[in-house]
């Protein structure tokens, strides 16, 4: 008997239960289930009603609402608080762009820009939160002039031959560099050198000088001519040397020599102290007065971001074949893992200044950051090591057989696979260090919890203990849960079918 072949493919039977079906099956499936459902339902109802009644009727939320500003950024100056808002806005914007770019197809270039944005973001955040001090434009040109030409040279214009010579040399070597190499970074270096030399001589070049035949012309003209002649000569030399590989290798050394020659030529060895005249574009806010949620997040972010690369390096070092590197890494990891975080925080406060020169006064918050970073790095190192061990040795052999160097084998084949395998424990460690930031209260820093505790000691908010701790708890939970969610998304995103 032959089976009839039909065009219609048989579909699996519908097994979806629907809400009511699900409830019936899972909650009232048997008499025991029914009993358990009823008991726990009653319990949840009583508990929920009690909590709700307390939260709505009895709780004194003024302790939290009146102090939101203090809890958020504490002693950070109020008139500068907009910078924190700008920080949040910057991060949101960057995240939004990232999301859009990653969603919108395979534009590799856009992705590179976004990644670049994230790489630069620590600098932006530092500038925004910490502040920045910039020299005024006149100071810049003044100082360049001072360093390169000495003040008397600026007046004694008859010594400008030095600047002229310097420019000619820079032009010459730049031209050689530009014409001889195809490498992009060298081309950029050549152009940058010329631009720098030109800008350095600008303050001097703007001055007028009697030139040929008694005609008055700005010095700039002579400088431009020197640069041009130098470039032309360099290009000619480069043409003659085309294809000579040894010249290419000597280029960095040549540049080093030229820099020395320039300094000698331009300063005549007399380097003075320039006038410093900075403007505070964004007034500096010392980390030691950061507090509240700002401090909590800053501590967590810095220790997470900095400990990650250090942890990877420690893990790689621990697997190194060099006995000294390996021994040092094991020693570091084991010592740090063998000491409680609180001890490390105290040590960082007390010991760090001992290792540094006296005038180098490290901020207390910065010390706490250092402590938390090395603590996290040691734990991360062990997690990453686990991931490294999970990568099969055949992968290394396959990569080696293609001619990849050991650095490339590690960076392109081993590490990506190892890190993918340990995303959950890494995220766990990050969540853990985020919550552990509350320990800095012990060394006298005012993180969210410490600020909260000091608020409820004030007379008018006495007794609002539950409200304050609940608020702090909810905050920690939201951030931690957000991190778990992110971890799950990353896992899913990078989830690769194993071969």
């Amino acid at each position, binding site marked *: 008997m032959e089976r009839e072949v039909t065009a219609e493919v048989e579909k699996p039977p519908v097994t979806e239960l629907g809400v009511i079906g699900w409830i019936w099956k899972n909650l009232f499936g048997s008499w025991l289930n029914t009993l358990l459902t009823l008991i726990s339902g009653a319990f949840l109802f009583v508990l929920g009603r009690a909590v709700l009644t307390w939260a709505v009727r009895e709780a004194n939320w003024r302790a939290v609402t009146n102090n939101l500003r203090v809890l958020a950024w504490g002693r950070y100056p109020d008139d500068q608080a907009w910078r924190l808002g700008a920080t949040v806005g910057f991060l949101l914007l960057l995240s939004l762009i990232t999301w859009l770019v990653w969603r919108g197809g395979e534009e590799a270039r856009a992705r590179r820009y976004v990644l670049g944005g994230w790489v630069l973001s620590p600098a932006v955040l530092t500038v925004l939160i910490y502040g920045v001090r910039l020299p005024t434009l006149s100071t810049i040109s003044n100082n360049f002039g001072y360093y390169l030409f000495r003040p008397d040279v600026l007046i004694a214009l008859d010594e400008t031959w030095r600047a002229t010579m310097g420019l000619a040399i820079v032009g010459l070597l730049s031209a050689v560099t530009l014409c001889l190499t195809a490498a992009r970074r060298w081309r950029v270096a050549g152009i940058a050198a010329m631009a720098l030399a030109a800008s350095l001589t600008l303050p001097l070049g703007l001055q007028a000088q009697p030139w040929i035949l008694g005609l008055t012309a700005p010095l700039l003209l002579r400088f431009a001519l020197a640069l041009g002649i130098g470039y032309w000569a360099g290009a000619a030399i480069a043409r003659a040397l085309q294809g000579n590989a040894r010249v290419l290798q000597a280029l960095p050394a040549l540049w080093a020599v030229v820099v020395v020659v320039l300094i000698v030529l331009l300063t005549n060895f007399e380097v003075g102290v320039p006038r410093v005249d900075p403007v505070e574009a964004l007034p500096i806010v010392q980390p030691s007065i950061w507090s509240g949620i700002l401090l909590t997040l800053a501590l967590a972010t810095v220790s997470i971001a900095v400990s990650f690369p250090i942890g990877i390096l420690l893990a790689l070092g621990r697997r190194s074949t060099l006995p000294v590197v390996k021994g040092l890494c094991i020693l570091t990891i084991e010592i740090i893992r063998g000491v409680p975080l609180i001890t490390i925080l105290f040590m960082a406060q007390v010991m760090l200044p001992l290792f540094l020169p006296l005038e180098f006064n490290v901020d207390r918050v910065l010390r706490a950051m250092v402590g938390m970073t090395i603590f996290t790095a040691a734990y991360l190192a062990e997690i990453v090591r686990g991931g490294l061990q999970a990568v099969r040795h*055949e*992968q290394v*052999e*396959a*990569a*080696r*057989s*293609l*001619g*990849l*160097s050991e650095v*490339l084998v590690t960076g*392109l*084949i081993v590490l*990506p*696979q190892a890190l*993918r395998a340990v995303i959950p424990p890494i995220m766990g460690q990050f969540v853990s260090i985020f919550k552990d930031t509350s320990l800095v209260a012990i060394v006298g820093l005012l993180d969210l919890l410490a600020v909260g505790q000091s608020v409820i000691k004030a007379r008018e908010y006495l007794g609002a203990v539950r409200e304050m701790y609940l608020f702090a708890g909810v905050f920690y939970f939201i951030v931690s849960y957000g991190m778990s969610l992110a971890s799950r998304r990353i896992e899913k995103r*990078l989830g*690769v*079918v*194993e*071969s």
Partner: protein
Amino acid sequence: MSEPIIICQDVHKWFGSFHALKGISMEVQKGEVIVIFGPSGSGKSTFIRTLNRLEEHQRGTIIVDGIELTHDTRNIHAVRSEIGMVFQQFNLFPHLTVLQNITLAPIWVRKWPKDKAEEVALKLLERVGIPEQAHKYPGQLSGGQQQRVAIARALAMQPKIMLFDEPTSALDPEMIKEVLDVMIELAKSGMTMIVVTHEMGFARAVAHRMYFFDEGLVVESGTPDDIFGNPKEDRTKLFLSQILTH
């Protein structure tokens, strides 16, 4: 005949106290296809792995393409980039797509621009018959397809020599042919190949010489006609009768 591309003289290898290779000598000319066969544990895999120094030999000399294999790491990278290797377990990189697997070494070792590397990779995928799989991950392919990607990955470096370490042993029977077809086409194109395999049909079709390994020694070597038609050693006869009877 010109200078041999591979010269091995009295190659020894120990694993701890186990003497895995007991003095192997072999010369391979450019364009030759060599098949190495023998019982498991006879040292055949170990031997071809010494040729690109995935295993270090402890005595004797190995000269590949005029470069002697020593502890000098620069030599090793230079030699490895001229030798393609295909493994029994494919060993594709699971976190990279097929295309990325193939273009990785040309981009990072040969410093080719990405466009050129991808163009070459797509041509190679066409040559091994799976151009449509370029953007999948290795885990989404069948064993035969994975092994063909592995061959393409090795070929992308434009090697002078290809080593095959039991390339069909981990495959389901219906996939062996598709991989062997690729290898036969490669052999006929003039590639120098050293193949560890028990596929005697392949050996008969394209091998120039065959080596029978047992207990770390070359027991017998010769052309396929010699080996199949007129084996001299009893061990060779026994082994051939065991693998050819079923």
